[in-house]
């Protein structure tokens, strides 16, 4: 699965994107966030306030309860401040 990060999520993790193999029990966006937090301090710092992290699946906004697709691009980012 391709993961992409933006703004302070990107800065704290220290990567703009990465490709990961997900364990079989990671089925939803919330599962993904919990699994990522266990990968290191940088992920823990980026995803500390897990409830405010916004998620897009294949470039469309998704809830934390959304199921992950078989493949594609999952983006994690802070609340948006455009406009």
């Amino acid at each position: 699965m391709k993961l992409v990060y933006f703004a302070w999520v990107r800065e704290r993790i220290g990567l703009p994107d990465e490709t990961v193999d997900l364990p079989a029990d990671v089925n939803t966006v919330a599962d993904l966030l919990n699994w990522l937090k266990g990968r290191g301090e940088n992920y823990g710092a980026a995803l500390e306030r897990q409830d405010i992290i916004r998620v897009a699946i294949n470039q469309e906004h998704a809830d934390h309860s959304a199921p992950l697709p078989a493949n594609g691009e999952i983006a994690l980012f802070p609340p948006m401040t455009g406009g």
Partner: protein
Amino acid sequence: MAPTCEPLVRVQADDFDLATETRRLTAGRRDVGAVVSFTGLCRDENGMLEALELEHYPGMAEAEIARISSEAAGRWPLTGLTVIHRFGKIVPGDNIVLVVAASSHRRAAFEAADFLMDFLKSRAPFWKKEHVRGGTGAGWVEAKDADLDDMKRWER
């Protein structure tokens, strides 16, 4: 509802020109009675801002603005709709975002432009970082609850 016009969406580093974009929606037409434009500019709140840096999610930024624009063109009878959002480094006084909505009737043009801005603020994948004068640091702008409230005005 099916969109009433084909919106034009651009996400770009370059500046835009209000006159050119307005002319594009009115030139040679006799059916446009109202054009509302919204220009969002980089503002220096306390005299300390050197520049804003706008990060965006390429691909999704265009797609999300196109989705919001199509919804507006389905909700209001528009003869034209243009949305341009810049990214990159922007100094105080410079343009950030432009919405131009044209219609036969003034209320449709006003409401569509207002709707677009509320949704861009809270749903378009852009993030602003503030660079402070003298190079003493940079910080990400926090999202405002008020912007989410503004978006809720349009629920129905």
